[in-house]
């Protein structure tokens, strides 16, 4: 029977949060990280929403440059195209944003786990604990939303440096109406609440302690068979698309193909990462051994950190095949030149946001892992194992899944676009600009991820430096 009022739950949650912040073991730092992750999520959500809103506004009132063109239809068609492209970018960023928001909520929940067991011991019900955790997550998310809004305001001058439709972005164009603010905030808070509730279902909270579910068994090769079957189904649906169908049916079939493709990638990739890591364990380097074994033990987590980049990598791979110079197209008019430039700017911006979200997710997951492994790290430190071992292992741990995902997705994107690109006259196949975009993407993503892995250093120092007196 639930006897705790919501006010009491909020009060208890606040006191526990205060206790965690004073904890030398680092669990309080996780709360701060969770707030930080929520802030990044909110900030980038506001950037994406306000950018889309700007295009909606420009559709209603096209920029002066468009109206000066000889082409009378341009002022009508081009703004609509930009709204559709912005909506596509939003759709592409939904998954990375959901991933980071979810990671922030799970992080809070895992950090609280041990304390929650004590609350069960003193008589709180499982439902009360879940609801109290949801309240805590909502408080963290609300703080993140507030910080995110401040960050968005601070970044307006930077966003003003961008140019779309041959017109610089004016900060006033990014001002969202109240209902859009409310909608974005509501979605962010709902996401935090739902992720916490779902995250706690993975943790069994009993009065005798909290235990995570047992290490999952190794992923099996049937996933490879499922991939082959899925590709066959997609090919079959592609055949269906050739038939004369209504727009609604076509849309549904296409959505089905896309859904199956995403499902297949999520099914197959963890198995592939596990396979690559299994090959990597045959090493004499302790750090690499540790990293590969961690991936083998939990390939789904490794994949979760980079999954949001797979689709974007594919798209960037496709876009990278378009040369920077317009000569390759035999010369373009100013309208198409603008469209091409906007397409590239939008793609790079979307990828940059996704990379920022991905590296924040990686930093969160690694920080959470440091706290979860506190006992192990302290024991290794006592044995004289240098802390650099864990730091190096983490670098390998984030680099392998990232590189594997990017190489595959970028490569597939290039492969998918090549037939189209090669059909264009005077088009160089993978010219210097293409190689530069691909290389910059890989190097940038790798640098951000390594930075994310390195961000755990202060937390590790704090965990190892906690010199509390053991009750001996």
């Amino acid at each position, binding site marked *: 029977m639930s006897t705790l009022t919501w006010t009491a739950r909020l009060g208890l949650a606040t006191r526990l949060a205060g206790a965690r912040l004073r904890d030398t073991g680092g669990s309080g730092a996780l709360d701060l990280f969770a707030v930080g992750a929520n802030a990044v999520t909110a900030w980038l959500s506001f950037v994406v929403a306000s950018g889309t809103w700007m295009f909606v506004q420009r559709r209603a009132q096209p920029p002066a440059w468009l109206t000066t063109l000889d082409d009378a239809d341009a002022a009508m068609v081009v703004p609509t195209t930009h709204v559709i492209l912005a909506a596509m970018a939003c759709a592409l960023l939904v998954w990375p944003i959901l991933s980071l928001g979810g990671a922030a909520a799970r992080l809070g929940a895992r950090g609280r786990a041990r304390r929650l067991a004590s609350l069960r011991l003193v008589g709180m019900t499982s439902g009360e604990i879940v609801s109290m955790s949801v309240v805590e997550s909502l408080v963290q998310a609300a703080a993140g939303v507030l910080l995110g809004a401040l960050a968005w305001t601070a970044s307006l001058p930077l966003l003003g440096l961008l140019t779309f439709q041959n017109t610089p972005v004016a900060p006033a164009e990014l001002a969202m109406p109240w209902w859009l603010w409310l909608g974005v905030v509501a979605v962010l808070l709902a996401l935090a609440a739902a992720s916490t509730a779902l995250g706690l279902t993975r943790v069994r909270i009993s009065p005798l302690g909290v235990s995570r579910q047992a290490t999952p068994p190794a992923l099996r090769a049937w996933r490879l068979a499922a991939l082959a079957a899925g590709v066959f189904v997609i090919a079959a649906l592609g055949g269906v698309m050739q038939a004369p169908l209504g727009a609604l049916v076509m849309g549904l079939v296409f959505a089905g193909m896309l859904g199956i493709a995403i499902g297949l990638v999520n099914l197959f990739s963890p198995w592939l990462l596990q396979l690559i890591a299994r090959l990597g364990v045959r090493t*004499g*380097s302790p750090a690499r051994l540790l990293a590969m074994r*961690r991936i083998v033990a939990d390939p789904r987590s490794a994949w979760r950190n980079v999954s949001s980049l797979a689709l974007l990598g594919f798209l960037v791979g496709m876009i990278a095949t378009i040369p920077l110079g317009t000569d390759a197209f035999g010369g373009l008019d100013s309208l198409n030149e603008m469209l091409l430039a906007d397409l590239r700017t939008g793609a790079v911006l979307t990828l940059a946001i996704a990379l920022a979200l991905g590296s924040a997710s990686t930093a969160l997951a690694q920080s959470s892992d440091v706290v979860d492994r506190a006992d192990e790290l302290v*024991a290794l430190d006592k*044995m*004289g194992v240098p802390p650099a071992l864990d730091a190096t292992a983490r670098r390998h741990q984030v680099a392998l899944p990232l590189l594997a995902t990017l190489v595959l997705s970028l490569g597939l994107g290039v492969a998918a676009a090549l037939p189209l690109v090669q059909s264009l006259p005077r088009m160089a196949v993978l010219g210097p600009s293409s190689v530069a975009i691909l290389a910059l993407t890989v190097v940038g993503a790798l640098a951000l991820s390594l930075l994310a892995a390195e961000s755990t250093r202060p937390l590790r120092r704090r965990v190892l430096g906690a010199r509390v007196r053991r009750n001996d």
Partner: protein
Amino acid sequence: MFDAPMPDAPTSDARTIAPPPAPTAHPAAPASPRRRDALVASGLVHRFGQVVALGGVSLTIPAGQSVAVMGPSGSGKSTLLHCLSGILTPDAGEVTLGGGRVSTLRDADRSRLRRERFGFVFQDGQLIGELPARENVALPLLLAGMGRAAALAHADSWLERLGVGGDMRLRRPGELSGGQAQRVAIARALVHDPAVIFADEPTGALDQATGHEVMQILTTTASMAGATLVVVTHDPHVARWCSRLVEIRDALVHSDTLATSTPLPTTGTALPRQEDAR
């Protein structure tokens, strides 16, 4: 208390444990026989804030001796182990190993000392969850620069010797029983041929029978390897496996007794001890 009858007989005899594996030819392999040195603590003082954990403890542990450090909760026995092993730097006094000062070494040098000359066994094993048993044991050798194949072969021979060979070598710690995991931890502590093994409540998470088994393995293998053994424990039955008992109370050595005969009891016979062997 120390002369009480022995608990249940250990489940296996010390004679069933094979001698330590032969050293490998790899240059990074631990040299054998390694120089054995006395571990000496002189006037150790350590405080945690206002709490005095060690109030001037002096202790000489000859090479190859097994010492049980006992005492009530909060007496300072784990702090003593941490100071002796260079994990903590005492506020006053010093620790020497073979005449070389441990407590004044730089942090990195103390880490290296712990890694190369000491072995550790913790209460709950503290094995790395993702590594199979053999890789957990091989880790100290890999850290010392030994090649993978040689390190794994050396680890395998230790695991075999401690009764966790065969398929168990390939299992991860979560797939082993508490006793098996502690055997793996003992193998990890011994694999690099340390001069001193520090065991902090090594049977604290085990049932009594398994605890006796683990203590028998620990004391026997340490003895055969010629390593000094320092065990911190609450349990007098565990302490009885050691040749010397140091009792800590209120941050000071309260008593220090020496067994007159070699331990490794296999029956319920009491071990006579010589009082005040300091």
